């Protein structure tokens, strides 16, 4: 039983290709004599091996050109000679992922996967800082998805920890994540992201930006992108979240307030002196808020996201 468990764990995290990250904690230098080849592993781990040709990490075996420490099972788990001689056991696996601390798992995987631009900020990502390493989301041998070896369907995987976000996607107004139209990774990079260019660049984090470093909202909502002669500065500087709740809202159009005039007045409330050269404009003195037509700001200010024709966004 011990042997079965040990061999299962041997292959349990294999796949992330080589484990020779220079930044990983010191480990014994790979010696060719410690490597026995993946064929030795399949003797006991036939269940894993039978489908391993469907695994992206099978490339390392198919290639036939990688060194032993970057090939197949041993590419991730290290040389298996000691493991075989001991007739199994997790303790004899050089890289038993279920026993490794998150940082070491990360370094092992980055040995090959650091080459991708999307993972270039992984060392300072929120996930890394909170001890969520690669195997927290990826299941190398029992993946539920055809791509990226995710342990579950993407939204369910994220919901596992982010229950509050899940509840937002079940609100009446939401991005269609549960319906399969939008994925979390359309807006977020779970491996860490470059510094945001909106708000004060410190929050939010883990946001996958559009190519120009802009808010990810503009990747789909291209009509809001501009450039406009008359940009709404708060949209440009503070980002869409200044008015919208991007995951979901109890209010229509993902707005933060149910009635639009309250949303507008919370900024346009006298921070400036009413002229255009002193900060946020106050509401116009001609607008009597008790008149119903002035309670629906966007009936006239239809181009709130930016306009080329009118500085007050009227057309």
């Amino acid at each position: 039983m011990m042997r079965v468990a040990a061999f299962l764990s041997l292959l349990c995290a294999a796949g992330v290709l080589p484990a020779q990250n220079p930044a990983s904690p010191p480990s014994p230098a790979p010696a060719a004599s410690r490597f026995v080849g993946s064929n030795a592993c399949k003797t006991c781990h036939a269940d894993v091996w039978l489908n391993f040709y469907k695994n992206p990490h099978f490339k390392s075996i198919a290639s036939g050109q990688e060194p032993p420490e970057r090939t197949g099972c041993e590419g991730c788990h290290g040389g298996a000679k000691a493991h075989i001689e001991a007739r199994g056991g997790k303790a004899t696996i050089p890289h038993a992922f279920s026993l490794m601390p998150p940082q070491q798992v990360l370094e092992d995987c980055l040995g090959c996967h650091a080459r991708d631009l999307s993972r270039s900020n992984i060392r300072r990502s929120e996930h890394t800082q909170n001890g969520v390493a690669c195997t927290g989301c990826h299941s190398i041998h029992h993946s539920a998805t055809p791509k990226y070896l995710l342990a579950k369907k993407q939204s369910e995987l994220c919901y596992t920890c982010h229950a509050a976000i899940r509840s937002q996607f079940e609100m009446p107004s939401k991005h269609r994540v549960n319906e399969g139209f939008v994925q979390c990774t359309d807006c977020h990079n779970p491996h860490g992201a470059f510094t945001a260019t909106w708000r004060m660049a410190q929050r939010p984090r883990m946001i996958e930006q559009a190519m120009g470093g802009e808010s990810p909202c503009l990747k789909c909502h291209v009509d809001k992108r501009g450039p406009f002669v008359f940009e709404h500065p708060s949209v440009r500087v503070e980002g869409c979240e200044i008015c919208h709740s991007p995951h979901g809202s109890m209010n229509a159009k993902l707005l933060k307030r149910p009635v639009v005039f309250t949303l507008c007045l919370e900024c346009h409330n006298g921070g400036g002196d009413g002229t255009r050269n002193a900060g946020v404009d106050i509401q116009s003195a001609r607008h009597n808020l008790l008149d119903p037509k002035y309670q629906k700001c966007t009936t006239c200010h239809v181009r709130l996201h930016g306009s080329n024709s009118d500085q007050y966004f009227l057309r």
Partner: protein
Amino acid sequence: MRKPFDIREVLWGRLATCGGWSIRLLLACASLSAQQVVAPTPEPVGPARGENSGNYNITQSFEIGYRWSLVNGDLGEYRSDVNYRNGLRLLAGSITINSKDGHGHYFDSIALNTLGLGNDPYQSASLRIEKNRLYRYDMLWRLNDYYNPGLTVAGGLHAMDTIRRMQDHEITLLPQSHFRVRAGYSRDTQTGPALSSALEFDATGSGLPIFSNVRREWNEYRVGADADFAGFKFTILHRWDFYKEDTPYSLAGVVAASALNPPLIPGAITDATVLQGFQRSEPNHGRNPGWLGNLFSSRKRWALNARINYTSGRNDFALTEAATGTGRLGGAASRQIAVLGDAERPMLNGEFTVSLFPTARLTVVNSTAVSNLRIIGPSTYSEINTGTDLGTSVFFRYLRDRLVTNTTTANYRVTDWIAFFAGYAYTDRLVRTEEGFAIPAFASTTNDAYETSNRLQTGRAGVRIKPVKPLTVTLNGEIGRANNPLTPISDGNYHTLGGRVDYRVKKLQLSTSYGQVYNVGAPGLVTTYSSHSRSYTASASLAPNSWFALDASYVKMHLDTVTGLQFFAGPIRPQLQSDYSSFYISNIHAVNFGSRFEIAKRADVYVGYSITKDTGDGRATAAPANVTDPIQSLLSGAQTFPLTYQSPLVRVSVRISAKVRWNAAWQFYNYGETFHLFGYDQNFNAHTGYTSILWAF
């Protein structure tokens, strides 16, 4: 209570005038029913290992079925929130083909997945084709049937019934080599009818409904390469994108402003504006070519990552508009407007990150980012209003946004069971606007310049504790101090606190968390602002065996904000009001439950329920009865928005044979507002469902 202007009446009227009686008939039939959200069926079908054909292994499954729905209540809100409708669908499809030795002739793997094809409101297809060492191609196609009645933002004058289609293609050549070439193409289109509004004849008139036929198109082309040399990984990417919009606008029926906004102020002059003729054409073409360069290296004791990104944006536009009708005071009115111009927005972003690993237990990361954008644009505006030539004005705006930020984080693993992390960040943001206008007929120019700078400093700290293997405890906090936020509701002086406990073993997962964000406006602002949000979560997942699984969660989210207000209002004429505040309170309780169980190894049953309920601040009516001040009554009515949205569902999947399953499901939606804030009942309930056959062949 008066029913507000109903956009559906206008839309239907518009369809009729377009000769769309057949379309109306179809819409009427559709409104008798609705649909589901529970498909496709997740249960597997066919042999798990697939079938072999030559040197390839193939798995495939398809689920074809019929969706149905029955909607009671507000169809517009249903379409906005759910939008599943009747019809035959390919609910899901999946094909995988894998070469068994990794040496296929043209490809080594193909993975195709589809969802909702055949007129579902949310459709997608993803495809990956890969040949080891030679190429990898990824495609993603998506469609969203988007409907929104827009009651919140414009009293029902705005609506959209559009289709958005998005597609992304990416091919990588030599994906496993030290030199990789990438190329990509993306496209995003939005088309369909919509209603908007226009303010005509004078600045104190009313916004009146207009019709538009949305036509937007965006295309992006990308070419790039990655190269690994001497331990460095270099990425360069060039892209071109082109945006085009030529949405035409026209009259959406003759509507009097007095019908939309009857005067509620005693003695106020009735707004006599009527729009009887309207045409607007507003083509604009934009392009945003850009470059991205990235350099990355990771060594034993350090790693670095440098990025530079430049995008040059330009948008050329023109607008012509002609409106006729009756002015606010009852006289005949007409207006012609012509606008011409272009806007430019060059953006430059750079970032340099250094990571140090002095020991195996310590990681220190420092990152410096710089962002700079400028927006420059003239807009030439000409207007003739009721026979009076108002001449031509050239408007000019310059907006600069410069941001510099430096962040340092440290992560130290003391032992295998406890680790600390901490960080400090400093950001300086400068926003400068300069704008002016010139009237060529007169030798005068007026310019306004405004500049503001904000500095934010934040500190973060946290600890991770793992006393036993299945148990993880995380605590963290952050404090931020900004000296001059751009807006009253921006991050000012804030702090966050968070905590999380996870217990995970193979068959059981328990988790609970707490988080709060408390933000107050920075000193110096004219008005006060504070926002306090708290969230509590608890979730459990149990999967004791292969035939039973249970998943449940509870979330409580609280938000209260108070904002000092200044605005103009009065029972007779508008006067500056400074003694009022905007309060907003939201208390959301969300429950999610799902359980799957197997019956006699032949049938799988899934039972689920979700409810999201905002209890507001507990009041019984929107505006408390004891509030007699009309201004306070108006503000009180928007302080909270109780709403319940719930959805139970049941799904049954029966295995007919090794390759065939029969599935059926029912899902119910109930949307219930308590206060009917818009003077119109948007509540609905809907029974939706589907039945399908899932098979592999």
